[in-house]
């Protein structure tokens, strides 16, 4: 066989491989989405979205999951904002102020990646033990703090990856103008990697709103909508969990309807944030 034929066979093999893995993944995701919609949509009603659980909700009687919707939004928006406020300076510091200390920064990256892989129940247990130490009860604020710690590694690393793509020449040019490193950080790097930062926000938000284990002990569960940070709070993933564990078919179907709600929330937030990003991001310099 000639060299040329081997190359063609190689090309063909990998193309088929890539085609099947891509379609395989997309089909699986579509299947999940489809099964959620199939089982969930029939049970989805305005009552479910607009009411808190009444007595007997978990036995198939009336009520809705408004408590979990509001609770999840409070919790994940709160922790995403908090993680952003902490994570952005960390990522900027790593990429601009510590640019000379490559090894140190790479070590930090390594540990953040490790933390990223730690299961969320560990964060939940950690948060719970800290709460016991300080004598705090399960509450919205405890959940927000725990989830913030849980999504911080993702937030920092995702922003970090975006900042890494900013070319060195831009840093040199800005510093040459006599800008301080902070001015460079917030006025130049932030703008230049805005779309990456938005992606980081969405990734973190998605992880925050979809996680059940980290909030299991820390926020607790309630049928009421919280009116203060010190009250326990319901969340959608836990609500889904409790409804799915019911033996009653109708309640199980409502679990799928709740999953549809969760999916739609993520969809709405993603699309609207992307829309705003486009309007804000026309000045990005392409290198």
């Amino acid at each position, binding site marked *: 066989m000639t060299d040329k034929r081997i190359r063609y066979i190689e090309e063909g093999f990998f193309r088929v491989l890539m085609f099947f893995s891509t379609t395989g993944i997309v089909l699986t995701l579509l299947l999940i989405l489809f099964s959620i919609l199939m089982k969930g949509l029939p049970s989805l009603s305005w009552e479910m979205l607009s009411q808190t659980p009444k007595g007997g909700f978990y036995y198939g009687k009336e009520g809705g999951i408004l408590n979990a919707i509001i609770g999840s939004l409070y919790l994940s928006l709160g922790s995403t904002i908090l993680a952003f406020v902490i994570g952005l300076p960390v990522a900027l510091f790593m990429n601009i102020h510590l640019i000379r200390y490559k090894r140190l920064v790479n070590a930090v990256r390594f540990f953040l990646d490790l933390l990223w892989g730690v299961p969320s129940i560990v964060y939940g247990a950690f948060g719970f033990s800290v709460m016991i130490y300080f004598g705090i009860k399960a509450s919205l604020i405890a959940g927000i703090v725990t989830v913030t710690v849980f999504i911080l590694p993702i937030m920092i690393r995702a922003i970090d990856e975006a900042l890494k793509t900013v070319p060195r020449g831009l840093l040199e040019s800005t510093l040459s*103008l006599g800008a301080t490193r902070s001015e460079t950080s917030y006025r130049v790097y932030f703008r230049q990697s805005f779309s990456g930062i938005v992606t980081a926000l969405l990734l973190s938000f998605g992880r925050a709103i979809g996680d059940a284990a980290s909030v299991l002990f820390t926020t607790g569960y309630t049928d009421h909508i919280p009116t203060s940070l010190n009250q326990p709070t319901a969340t959608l993933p836990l609500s889904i969990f409790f409804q799915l564990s019911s033996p009653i078919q109708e309640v199980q179907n409502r679990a799928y309807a709740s999953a549809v709600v969760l999916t739609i929330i993520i969809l709405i937030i993603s699309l609207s944030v992307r829309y705003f990003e486009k309007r804000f991001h026309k000045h990005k310099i392409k290198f």
Partner: protein
Amino acid sequence: MDRPAKIVIKDLNLYFGKNHVLKNVNVQIPEHKITVILGPSGCGKTTLLKSLNRLIDLNPNVKVSGSILIDEEDVLHTRKDITQIRRKMGLLAQRPYPLPMNIFNNVAFGLRISGRRNQLMLKRRVQHYLEQANLWNEVKDRLKDSATSLSIGQQQRLCLARGLSVDPEIILADEPTSALDPLSSMAIEQKFVELKKNYTIVLVTHILQQAQRIADHVIFMYMGEVLEQGSADEVFNHPKHEITRNFIKGNFN
């Protein structure tokens, strides 16, 4: 040299890790002239330029000894704020790096960080510096447009205007025409010749013809050493060193 030297470099040695990049560099750069640092790629020209405004600080494992006196102040060992020193020197990089904002703000950025925030004044100064860089007529109707909408040549002039906006005394140019077409390159060269009245210009290039066209003072570098320095006439017409002679004749490898 009829004027006193603006920049005096004494016994400068620089290492990146174990790599000895600049070897015993002793150089004088005269005021209000175009000094060209000439030499083949990888000879340390850019590193020498970037040590002037201490951009080498950004590199890991960099070791420097010697001194760089700018207006008799040692920038390597100064207690002054580094941003004050950098503000004295505008940098024009190998390719333009406009800021991710609109054309007006690109120039106004420099003014704002030096504390000028009066809107009317900003407008007047931005126009002034864009005119200085011969860009005003092309962009006056589209100041709100993104800097990316400009051509590369225009972007480089925008960067020049931005560099001038912080009112430097020295212009450091690191092969500023290497990404540009011949016409834009000529525009930048001509600009330099005009600007030398008011600024001290240090230009790094590996293009011999460019050096011959605009240099007043030439520093020839090879493998991290300064082989030759003097007026353009001296270096180009009466080179002392064999390697310089070959480089100028063009049979260099």
